[in-house]
Each structure stands twice: as structure tokens, then as C-alpha cells.
């Protein structure tokens, strides 16, 4: 469903993404790893239109979306979360999710002012079920800015899911979480997020990548340096070198 071909994005003289090809199919969860600054978040920003691509093609279900406005792109069925946590701090947890549904197919334009009670009840029940599943049910009515960090990450995921996206982009969904919380997050993503849609996960925690992804793509300086199953990729010499550098005296 998502196909990226020869994608380039430069900032001044820096090539943040330097000719990247990748693809994601429905039901696929692609892991995206690489050292800091290797272009992972930039890829999300280019796919969602925050930055237009410098060159190359991005197709969603066969349609070219490169260079469109961000709101148009995400309305084709993309939702994302953010590495540096973004919630609407002065709205309640429930409102954060509810508000994000405004452009879902089943929300009629007139419902921007006058909700259809039956449809609205169904959507609210769906949100409550998602919040329950994410362990946020008892936080439903507090302002999102008052949530602890792991709860804000869960809220971001629920908000993204409630929009009913076909493609989901998760940027370090377990960032800053304890091992137990990370495990809970992985289970939530596996059960609620991946089925029926394409998914890309940026994550530094390898146990999470191993659990969620069949396929991993490793970036370094904006280029793909390896792709394959998690285990094969993590044994790859170039990947080890990108992460921890070369051994002294190893002049291969």
C-alpha cells in the first residue's frame, strides 16, 4: 500500500534521506531502525507532507502523494504518533481521541456542528473500548497534559487508531517506558494496531522490534544499509558498525 521510490530530502547541504526505497503491505509491520540522525523521523515527516520530498516518489495505494499538503495526505488514511510526544494538553483524554475523528468516513460534514446521536453513541463506545484496552479508562476525563509520559504515549496510539487509518506510523512508541510498560505497549500494538493495516515502527528497543516486525529496515545517513528479518539484520556487520563503530585496527 505504501511505496517509496528513490526518495531524497535535503536540508541545505545535508542529505537527511539520500535515495530510499521501501514498501509496506496491509498487515505488514516494518521496523525502522538506525542511529540518531539517520533519517527515520524525517521519513515520517516527508511521508505525511510536513516536508515535501526533494526528489523521488511516494505512493499510497498507487496514488502519488509526494508534495501534497499534510492534511490532504493524512486524510487519505495515514495516522502517526510523535517521538517527542504530542497531545492536546488542555483537552481531556477522551476529547483528544474524539476530536481527531472529525474526518473519518462515517462523520458527515454537518456533524461538525450537529451530531447524529446514534452514530455518535457508536463512535463514543468505540473510543471508550479503545481507552479501556489501553488502560486509560480511569483517566478518561482528566486533561491530557496531566498524564504521565507512558500514558501520553498510549493516548497518542489510541488517537491514531481512532481515526481508522490504513497506514500507521509509530515513532518510538515505547520511548521512555520501563520494560514492563514496553511489553504492554508491544501487546497493544500487536493486537489493536497491526491487524488489517500497514504499519511502520521506529524503535530503539530491539525486543520490541523482534516482537512486532517480520521485516526490518536499517537506515544510516539517510540510506538503507540492510533489510530483512530482525535476526539476520542484527547480525549484519554494516549494522553493527553503524551502531557501535568499527573495531580499532580492523581495516577491512
Amino acid at each position: 500500500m505504501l511505496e517509496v521510490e528513490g526518495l531524497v530530502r535535503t536540508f541545505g547541504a545535508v542529505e537527511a534521506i539520500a535515495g530510499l526505497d521501501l514498501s509496506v503491505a496491509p498487515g505488514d509491520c516494518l521496523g525502522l531502525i538506525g542511529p540518531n540522525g539517520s533519517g527515520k523521523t524525517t521519513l515520517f515527516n516527508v511521508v505525511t507532507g510536513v516536508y515535501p520530498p526533494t526528489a523521488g516518489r511516494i505512493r499510497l495505494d498507487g496514488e502519488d502523494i509526494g508534495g501534497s499538503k499534510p492534511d490532504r495526505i493524512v486524510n487519505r488514511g495515514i495516522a502517526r504518533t510523535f517521538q517527542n510526544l504530542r497531545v492536546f494538553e488542555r483537552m481531556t483524554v477522551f476529547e483528544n481521541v474524539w476530536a481527531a475523528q472529525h474526518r473519518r468516513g462515517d462523520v458527515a460534514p454537518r456533524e461538525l456542528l450537529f451530531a447524529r446521536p446514534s452514530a455518535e453513541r457508536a463512535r463514543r463506545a468505540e473510543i471508550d473500548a479503545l481507552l479501556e484496552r489501553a488502560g486509560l479508562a480511569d483517566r478518561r476525563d482528566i486533561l491530557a497534559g496531566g498524564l504521565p509520559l507512558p500514558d501520553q504515549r498510549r493516548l497518542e496510539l489510541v488517537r491514531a487508531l481512532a481515526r481508522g487509518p490504513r497506514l500507521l506510523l509509530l515513532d518510538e512508541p515505547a520511548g521512555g517506558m520501563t520494560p514492563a510498560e514496553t511489553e504492554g505497549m508491544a501487546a497493544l500494538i500487536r493486537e489493536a494496531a497491526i491487524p488489517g493495516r500497514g504499519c511502520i515502527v521506529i524503535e530503539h528497543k530491539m525486543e520490541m522490534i523482534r516482537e512486532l516486525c517480520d521485516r526490518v529496515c536499517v537506515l544510516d545517513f539517510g540510506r538503507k544499509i540492510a533489510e530483512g528479518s530482525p535476526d539476520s539484520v542484527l547480525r549484519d556487520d554494516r549494522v553493527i558498525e553503524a551502531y557501535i563503530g568499527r573495531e580499532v585496527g580492523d581495516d577491512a
Partner: protein
Amino acid sequence: MDDHLIGILSNIGMISFIALSAYLLLIVGEISFGQQAFFAIGAYAAGIATAMWGWDFWPGLVWGAGIAALAAVLVGIPTLRIRGLYFSIATLAFAEMVRLVFEVFEYRVEIDGEMVGPDGSDGFRDIRYIFENDITAFEYMAMIYLLLAAVLAGFFLLERSRLGSIFRMIGQDHILAEMQGLNVTLYKILALCLAGFVAGIGGALYAHLTTFVEPKIFNVMLGVHSLAYGLIGGLGTAFGPLIGVAIDIGFLESVQFISGYRMIAFGGLVAVLLIVRPRGLLDEAAVNRIRLLLRRHA
């Protein structure tokens, strides 16, 4: 009811409209120093309609508010691409431009042997509709509050609706709002248009209450006050700016022994609140707490 009290209450009601208009823009995250321009446009347009074209009051009022809304959209299209401080400066510049245009704007016609109409910096006299139609001060006050109730009902509908939540999303994080699929500029122009309409209603009411408008009262202080009302009363609900107006007009300006110190007290109040409650008395947290309490007891 004595005339003094009616006068104060009428003023509170009328100024509430411009306070609500500035509040709406604060909700979408923009600080406008120029809402007095739409107030002025509403005042002139409605005054021209009733005093010079012989229109009835209500169509005149809707016309005045509509012209103000149209002006707001025309200002919004170029200025809302710029954000934050630059938007604020652009609105201030626009409002000063409008005021200076009214300083030279002459449109006089002879009605019953008298010249009527805007006369540059001498202002626009004889907007005598409420006298000619025997509307008492009390009745006019009732009309102001009827309209205010209608506008407030609109605000409450808005705040419970998806459109209201869209405005708040944009105001809190416009990039995140864009990532939820919102055309941020379009919704900001819609907010500016609604805010212009509401300010225009206030202006139309003002013109007919005082029967006389002159350009110099639509200066930047009016705009600054309307911003401050929301910031004092709170940005969590449309009641917030009304509390701000009630404190300023109802108390500081109207209680005799305080009124001489109005600006000092008002400025001090704004400064203190910006430190202890930057989003006003009824901020989002307070409103959420009240909502939960009400729900528990409902």
C-alpha cells in the same frame, strides 16, 4: 431601574460582543489587536443602513455584522498564512488603517432638510433609530441581552461540537492539528469570519445606543481591552470573557471612587493574572473540574 444602571448594563452587554470575538480568536491560538476594526465597521455599516437608507433595525444590524464578517475574511486570507506575532501586528495595522479611513470617510445625504452621514473625523451623528421608534433605554437593553443570549447559545453549541474541538486543537498545537487532517488556514479564516460577525453585532448595537460614532473611539485600547477580558475571565468557556467585561465595566469603570484608578487597577489585574493564572480565572482545567462536578451531581 434607574438610567445609570441601565446605561452600565447596556455597556456591559455591548462590550461583551467584542470580548467574545477576541476570545474566539484566542481559542484558535491567534492574538488579534484589531477586533475594534470589525466593531467599527459594524457600527458604521449598520448606522448608514438605518439612518441613511431607512432600513429597519434588525436588517441593519445583520447587514452591519455581515459586512464586518466579510471584511474579516478579506483580512484573513492574506494574514492567516502568517502566524503568531506577525498576525498580531498585521491585525493592529489593519485596525489603524480602518480607523484612519473613517477619519476621512465622508458620505452625506440630505434627509428632511438635514445633512446626515459620516463626516470624516467629526464622526457620524444622528443615528436616531431608537428615538424615532420610541424604544426606551430599558427596551434597548433588553434587545442587547436577547442578542447576547442568542450569540452565547451559539458559542455553547460550538464548544460542544466537533467544530469547537477543531478550533481548540488548532489553538493548542497547529502542527498536530494538521496531522489529524485539518486544513488549519481554512478553519482559522472561518474563526476570523465568525469573530468579525460577532464584533460587528457589537458595533451595530453601539452605534444605535450612543446615536453617534466617531473614529477615535475605535482605537487600539478597545482592542487591547477586548483581548484582556478573555485573559482575565478565562479561556475555558465563553463565560470567561463576560466575567472579564463585568469586572472592568461593571466594577472598575462604574464604581465612582474607583473609576479614576480604572486603568491602574485593570493593568495590575491583568499583570497578576498573567502570572498566577495565565489562561484566566475559568481556564480549561477549572472548566473541566466544574463539568465533572456537575456530571457527578446530575
